[in-house]
């Protein structure tokens, strides 16, 4: 399982724009660091070969 690329500040700003977030320039570097850590966790989960039939844990009852 390869490590995900480090999330840089430009990536943070691009993602933030997609969700309508304007991040103070003073916070961007720290956000990039935390997002790198979270994406590492995402990569760990992605690395597991889940059976295709596995549904998400929460189920909806109408």
């Amino acid at each position, binding site marked *: 399982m390869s490590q995900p690329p480090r999330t840089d500040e430009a990536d943070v700003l691009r993602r933030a724009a997609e969700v*309508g977030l304007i991040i103070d320039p003073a*916070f961007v570097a720290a956000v990039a660091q935390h997002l790198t850590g979270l994406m590492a966790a*995402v990569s760990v*989960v992605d690395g597991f070969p889940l059976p295709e039939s596995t*549904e*998400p*844990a929460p189920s909806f009852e109408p």
Partner: protein
Amino acid sequence: MLQEQALADAEAIDRRRAAGQDPGPLAGVPFAAKNLFDIAGITTVAGSKIHADRPAAARDATAVARLRAAGAILVGALNMDEYAYGFTTENTHYGATRNPHDLSRIAGGSSGGSAAAVAGGLVPLALGTDTNGSIRVPAALCGVFGLKPTFGRVSRAGVVPLAWSFDHVGPFARDVADLALAFDTIAGPDSTDPACATRAPVPCVPALARGVDGLRIALLGGHFARLATDDALAAARRAASALGVRREVTLPEAQRARAAAQVITACEAGAYHLERLRARAADFDPMTRDRLLAAALLPATAYVRAQRFRAWFRACVANVFAETDVLLAPTTPWTAPAIGAPWFTRIGDTEVPTRGHLGVFTQPLSFIGLPVISVPLSTAGSLPLGVQLIAAPFNEATLFRVAARLEAEGVVASRVVRAPTV
């Protein structure tokens, strides 16, 4: 502090007694609640500056109301990590909650105020919440008992959410009997909480005297025996030895479960706070702000895959519980770090985040809503350590049987700091 209301409640208890009425099983027992819980007449600040601007709560959270209905006296609301997104209760707005056993150290979090209030002898009972370890971690670091019940066993109505998939409500107490009584009082269906289980609770107080004969108990290895101090690992082995445990089992992919818990927590917390992050990011606690901003940027595919992995992990662990009734594991990887400790800590050859790593042993378990009691080891050094007792869903009574045995044999006991007498 709720001095006037507490005195009024106490007077009401006295009137009920004088009238020959049953004042309730917790009559006159003082308790406090993490300031994440609605308390009628005061604002639920949730450890934040932003929520402090809100109007007072109209009614008590269900768990608070149930304790009060049993006669307990609510005396105050307690400090926490902002929006419960932390393991340390180093709150920039309201100050750090200090560990009663060493005031230079953290009490743990996010229910640090709750654990410290019990450990400091301020109240015998407190309410907290646990999403990834926020009852168990402070209970262990402060040397008291803490219960994270089965997911959905205790109503979350009137509690500010962190992550809907993992939020649990539970008690802290100085001994097993108090913990069981508090749990029996707050557990049970609540139609105002959509995630609350409808099945009737199994009373735990009657289970305390049943002993542990016939229970299949094992020590967790693998993920739960790594990246921790020798003392923390020895704590779990000490409890296992006292119970005559000889078997060790492994939960498959526990480290991956922890990663998935982090992803789901972040996605749900980021989504919940998105409007506030858009409008008032600068008013968040710097200890949580940048983490929540990052959380709000995660892709939806990551969230869905983590929830799918959760279903897989739940099924695997259910197979483990087909052969075992109770599992044991350390609660935390080390004793309480200093307030303001460095961001990273080296354990062996590995550098880990000092604060985040406090959840290394708790997160894989709350990930699938298992009931866990953190019991304080009586033979820990100058700083407390805890051990997790873990069961299959809705088997809190089984956990209390084990906790009661360990307490009766002196293996576990609260360490309550008494104020020096003059």
